[in-house]
């Protein structure tokens, strides 16, 4: 008997269900991209905490600009790098809201360096989700502040060199030094175990943000197969072998 896919999709056969805070829109992300997984984890945390009506997200400039199409909450779309300034105002004007920024490495660690440092230093009671894939995805694979030495990008065609391009910026380590931050962690989502840890970190960050403890900062070391010119599987292996040694996973601060 030839079975149609419709014959398989029945309630009794379902072992996994899309979270209801995630919309039905088809994601524009490339295969293997970490954004989709992180979006899903955020939606799960919001759903489990029951804060859909109290959460406001700020999407960046970059691939995740369209985050507002996927997570079913109110969103603001910020100018490049400025999400922490928007978040600052929202949280101060609406202290009962849960406010998070979602930013890539170019957005947060290059053009938006001043805004992220000062928001964290003021101890704004917000959540910062930092997607570090060491490359500019949306503009086509240029060098990011976090691009590793030797890494080939479209603006470092012979590999990033320290004397020409400076060093990959460990901004999360800088953020952890600031008195205003209460929780700074670096996670990843390349397998189920890692994704579970990231979800736990996100949950803690969201919970912190309504306890007047200061800023919670969750970096997710991420893959960008398209930018790195690798298949999804190769990208994850490359990330583990090259990104993790320079950007080691784990909590940098938790108080």
């Amino acid at each position: 008997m030839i079975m149609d896919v419709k014959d398989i999709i029945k309630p009794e056969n379902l072992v996994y269900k899309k979270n209801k805070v995630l919309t039905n829109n088809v994601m524009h992300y490339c295969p293997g991209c970490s954004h989709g997984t992180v979006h899903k984890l955020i939606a799960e945390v919001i759903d489990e905490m029951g804060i859909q009506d109290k959460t406001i997200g700020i999407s960046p400039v970059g691939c995740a600009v369209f985050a507002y199409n996927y997570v079913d909450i109110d969103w603001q779309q910020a100018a490049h790098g400025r999400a922490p300034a928007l978040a600052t105002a929202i949280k101060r004007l609406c202290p009962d809201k849960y406010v998070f920024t979602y930013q890539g490495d170019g957005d947060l660690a290059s053009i938006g360096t001043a805004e992220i440092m000062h928001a964290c230093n003021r101890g704004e009671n917000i959540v910062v989700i930092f997607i570090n894939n060491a490359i500019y995805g949306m503009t086509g694979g240029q060098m990011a502040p976090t691009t590793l030495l030797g890494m080939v990008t479209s603006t470092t065609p012979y590999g990033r060199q320290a004397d020409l391009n400076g060093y990959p910026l460990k901004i999360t380590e800088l953020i952890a030094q600031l008195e205003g931050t209460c929780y700074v962690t670096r996670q990843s989502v390349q397998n189920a175990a890692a994704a579970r840890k990231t979800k736990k970190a996100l949950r803690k960050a969201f919970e912190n943000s309504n306890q007047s403890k200061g800023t919670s900062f969750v970096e997710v070391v991420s893959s960008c197969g398209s930018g790195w010119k690798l298949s999804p599987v190769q990208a994850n292996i490359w990330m583990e072998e090259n990104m993790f040694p320079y950007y080691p996973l784990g909590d940098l601060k938790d108080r």
Partner: protein
Amino acid sequence: MAEKVLKKGNEGIALGAIHCGCDGYFGYPITPQSEVMETLMEEKPWETTGMVVLQAESEIASINMVHGGACCGKKVMTSSSSPGLSLMCEGLSYLAASELPCVVVNVVRGGPGLGTIQPSQGDYYQAVKGGGHGDYKTIVLAPFSAQEMYDFVGLGFDLAFKYRIPVMMLTDGMIGQMMEKVELRPQQARLSDQEIVSRYGSWATTGKTSDRPKNAVTSLALESKVHEALNFKLQAKYAEITEHEVRFETLACEDAEYLLVAYGSVARICESAVEAARAQGIKLGLLRPITLFPFPNVEIQRMIPQLKGILSVELSAGQMVDDIRLAVEGKVPVHFYGRLGGMIPSPQEVLEACKAHYIK
């Protein structure tokens, strides 16, 4: 009777913000407008009305904090002076494109560059023609007294929310620093969260409830058709504003043969020039635009038949004069007289300039 106080123009802005029920002010120090934030910090409105006041790390952060607050349907504002406004132009473009209400005050100083801290009107083009990228406009109010500095904050918010558009107050160091009598208005209550939801819940990020779809405030529209439609919508709004919101004042215009056009601090000097001219039997009048966008084109055009010449008087190298020329379409001679770098003309100098062009 309403309380009258002696205040600097900049202090008037701060008090105007508190009294009109402003929700938040975000700013960065720059001369000659630092008294705005200093006054707010001294007044501590967070203890009375609940207004948030925050010193940001830059003008870029300030305008983006305004962006964040405006998205929530809050009455939020910032103030700065010329170099700071240049930094805010990107943010203003985003605010205008996202159709967000806010008030932005520019207490103009002399430029270009670091320039001088003395008064100037050199930012007219930037304020009236957009300043940032793309086809957008802001409503531009030009106060000429401490009283108007105080009053126009509330007026600015009314217009900003009526049209969902950023409103700029374009003033200068002279009005900002000058002390004058200000008649205070009764304290207006800030809107409650519930009132904000019922008034602005259709677009503001007040939190996605089950009874409405999510609100995503964005200026991004990658599809050409969609983006063109967004632009047409903005242009239609600007046309509506042009039709309904022109504000100006006239002095001795009924029988005027010669017309001075001036706004802000220079308009006060021109008032004295008109008096001096009348004493000499010269039929000089003054038109003071209160809104620079929308510009009082129609009023200027109405006066064309009676006029022999127009003089635009500005603290710039000649910027508003372009809009006057566009309004008269060559039907009346239009000349310009201006001073730069913080130099202020006397009423006599203005009158002499007018005579030199028109009354030989």
